[in-house]
């Protein structure tokens, strides 16, 4: 089929937000290194003393006639060098202490953490003053006084990160195949903690600049012949009162600019937002014209659409751009009808595009998705990109029960108030006990925190929230995932109940077994590689499938032979072929049989 030629638009704001501070920092570093080198050694020229900023002296001159543009660069160079030394020393110390505490555990951990607390409790400036007073004018004393007081934060971060990884299942697995403690430390614990430590290092940098400047300003830091920004500020103190504001403004401006640029740059170093698989950023889609595709669909659902279905999807094609400029072919020419009072099941392997289709029906496609075809809800055409139209539909007309389970709710609040909030925001008057009763939960569940809910209870709670606005359409994405067969059956019966009360229900699931056992579905649509390959009454599809893929899917069920499907599930990202099931037969045979 024809592919949209336009490349996905890059998100400019996010990029400039990362590039700007780094560029500013780079410019400042160049300024600090290049300007003193270019200007050469400066000599005092009292005939030029205290000139204001102008073409000859951009930042003006100080009371000795030094050019402040050059002087501030020299000061910045000293400040940056000392701050970098401090930040690196403190980070190395912090990583060493944190790693030792986390990997040793027990008493060593306790001892090291008490020491960390102790150092943290010392007044940093006071300690700095004492150390520097013992070795006046020594840059090493300044570095030592700052780095010896600033490692505890890094140590805490590193220890916490390593503790959380230490009990991870992949670390357990590594121990089981005979890895030594040292190997686990090097392969898993340190790699997990180092990105955090790097952020700590960058955050320490501006802090150390300020700390050193403070010491120098107090006259305890570096002598005027090795001026840092703080020394310049101290020198400027007297001149400001004579009206020479620029003597203060030049070093202060450079100091503030450096701090802002460094703090901003730390965001670039950080681990960054974890890239989500599938729908991540919501909102905003672009329509793509001319991609209607003929679907080879074995369908025997009544094509006559006498009563307008609650949801009518025709020729829906969805293309999701990935970060590296490829396209995920999530849906291709999908036709689907959801009728009031009927439960339709959408089945297929993981990663066949089911959940993206669900997002499309709820107006929650990721940013930049290109779509073609039509989605009509309650008789009205709703373009995928029309955010405002969708906003009125969310929860009230189309309810979504996502697959996150207990993670759907805020972990720090009880269930009851959260459900009440959902109902209130939808303008639904239903009290919480009734919402809970609808999904077979007892009133006491309202007092539980999300983590206290069992898998089955969480699935019900998610349904309660989705049904709070009495939507005409309910989309349930993998409502039975991770539930044992009994619980899965109960949840499917709840959904059946919702359909019997007149809701159009779409259940997206890969759990054919539960679907078959519960007998809850009226119709079953089978999805393969983004296409609906078969769609018909549940009984017929599950007993006498017409499409070979449906047959293979059913044969994989434990009760029907547990036969693996041939080859590998199809790739939806820039698929090489048509994505038909027949192509898969040529794939690698599993397990070398």
């Amino acid at each position, binding site marked *: 089929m024809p592919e949209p030629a336009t490349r996905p638009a890059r998100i400019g704001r996010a990029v400039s937000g990362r590039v700007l501070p780094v560029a500013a920092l780079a410019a400042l570093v160049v300024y600090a290194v290049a300007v003193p080198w270019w200007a050469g050694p400066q000599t005092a020229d009292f005939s030029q003393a205290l000139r204001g900023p102008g073409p000859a002296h951009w930042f003006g001159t100080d009371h000795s006639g030094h050019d402040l543009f050059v002087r501030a660069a020299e000061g910045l160079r000293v400040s940056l060098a000392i701050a970098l030394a401090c930040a690196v020393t403190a980070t190395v110390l912090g990583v060493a202490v944190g790693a030792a505490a986390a990997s040793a555990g027990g008493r060593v951990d306790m001892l090291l953490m008490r020491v960390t607390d102790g150092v943290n409790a010392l007044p940093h400036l006071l300690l700095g003053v004492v150390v520097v007073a013992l070795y006046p004018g020594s840059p090493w004393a300044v570095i030592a006084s700052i780095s010896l007081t600033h490692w505890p934060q890094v140590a805490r971060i590193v220890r916490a990160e390593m503790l959380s990884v230490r009990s*991870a299942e992949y670390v357990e697995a590594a121990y089981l195949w005979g890895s030594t403690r040292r190997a686990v430390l090097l392969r898993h614990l340190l790699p997990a903690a180092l990105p955090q430590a790097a952020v700590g290092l960058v955050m320490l940098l501006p802090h150390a600049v300020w700390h050193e400047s403070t010491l120098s300003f107090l006259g305890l830091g570096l002598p005027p012949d090795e001026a840092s920004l703080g020394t310049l500020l101290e020198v400027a103190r007297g001149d400001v009162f004579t009206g020479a504001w620029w003597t203060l403004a030049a070093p202060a401006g450079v100091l503030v600019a450096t701090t802002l640029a460094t703090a901003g740059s730390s965001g670039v170093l950080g681990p960054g937002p*974890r890239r989500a698989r599938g729908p991540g950023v919501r909102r905003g889609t672009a329509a793509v014209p001319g991609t209607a595709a003929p679907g080879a669909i074995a369908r025997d659902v009544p094509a006559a659409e006498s009563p307008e279905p609650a949801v009518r999807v025709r020729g829906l094609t969805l293309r999701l751009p990935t970060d590296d400029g490829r396209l995920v072919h999530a849906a291709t020419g999908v036709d689907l009808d959801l009728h009031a009072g009927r439960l339709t099941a959408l089945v297929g*392997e993981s990663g066949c595009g089911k959940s993206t289709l669900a997002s499309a029906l709820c107006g929650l496609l990721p940013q930049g998705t290109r779509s073609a075809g039509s989605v009509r809800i309650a008789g009205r055409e709703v373009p995928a990109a029309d955010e405002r139209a969708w906003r009125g539909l969310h929860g009230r007309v189309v309810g979504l029960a996502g697959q996150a389970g207990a993670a759907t709710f805020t972990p720090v609040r009880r269930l009851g108030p959260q459900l009440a909030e959902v109902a209130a925001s939808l303008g639904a008057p239903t009290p919480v006990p009734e919402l809970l009763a609808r999904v077979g939960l007892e009133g006491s569940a309202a007092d539980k925190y999300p983590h206290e809910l069992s898998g089955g209870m969480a699935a019900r709670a998610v349904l309660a929230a989705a049904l709070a606005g009495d939507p005409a359409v309910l989309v349930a994405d993998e409502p039975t995932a991770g539930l044992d067969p009994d619980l899965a059956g109960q949840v499917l019966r709840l959904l059946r109940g919702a359909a019997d009360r007149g809701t159009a229900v779409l259940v997206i699931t890969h759990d054919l077994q539960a679907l078959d056992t519960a007998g809850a579905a009226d119709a079953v649509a089978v999805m393969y590689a983004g296409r609906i390959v078969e769609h018909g009454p549940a009984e017929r599809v599950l007993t006498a499938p017409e499409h070979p893929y449906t047959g293979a899917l059913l044969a994989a069920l434990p009760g029907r032979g547990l036969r693996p*499907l041939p080859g590998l599930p199809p790739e939806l990202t820039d698929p090489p072929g048509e994505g038909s099931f027949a192509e898969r037969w040529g794939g690698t045979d599993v*397990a070398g049989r």
Partner: protein
Amino acid sequence: MSLVAEGVTCRYGQQTVLDGVDLTVEPGRVLGLTGPSGSGKSSLARILTGLRSPDSGTVLADGRPVAARRGRMSGDLGLLHQSPRAATDPRMRLRGIIAQPLTARARGTGPGARGAGRKADEARRVAELARRVGLTGDLLDRRPDQVSAGQLQRACVARALAAAPRYLVCDEPTAMLDAASTATVAHLLTSLAEDGVGILAISHDHALLAAWAHDVVDLSRLGAPHTGHPAGRRASP
């Protein structure tokens, strides 16, 4: 020669989760273990592999006590976790994940086995394992968050194969998978048993175990509390 648990008891505070469980996992067979939620299936898996010490009772692998000290484990026992996402380091690529046990073993053999030869050998082994579990080459260069749960669990099976344990405990290995991937993973593990590995397949899915395992035992009849100690608790014939 088998993995034998005798009188294993496990307590969390006042609560007794396992009470005198006897279980035998034999090489070359798939033993199914089922039981309701909270009956201590996962605790038993951790005890059998040495990740947790039983409060009383013994676990012997081929007659020797199971090593329970981290960093000193023998590698004879493997554990296949329920969630492949939690069981893989999110920072590594699939290729590296599968190679991990090989790398760890190579370090153990000392300075003789270093260099380019070892690297090439390792790459060859990884490719071979990937082919066996049905992972294509392009998937090997991805990180865990870029593949599906089914694909990642295949990588975990490949990693378990690379570790070459004598006994593999599988704690709900298919709970996160769709029916098609479940069938694939079940067949892979069966083929592993045919190579002589003893497999303990823990699952709440009775239908799956009935179709897959050679024998099935119910933990609630083996020594979960309040059920008494019926005679003939030995799990495996």
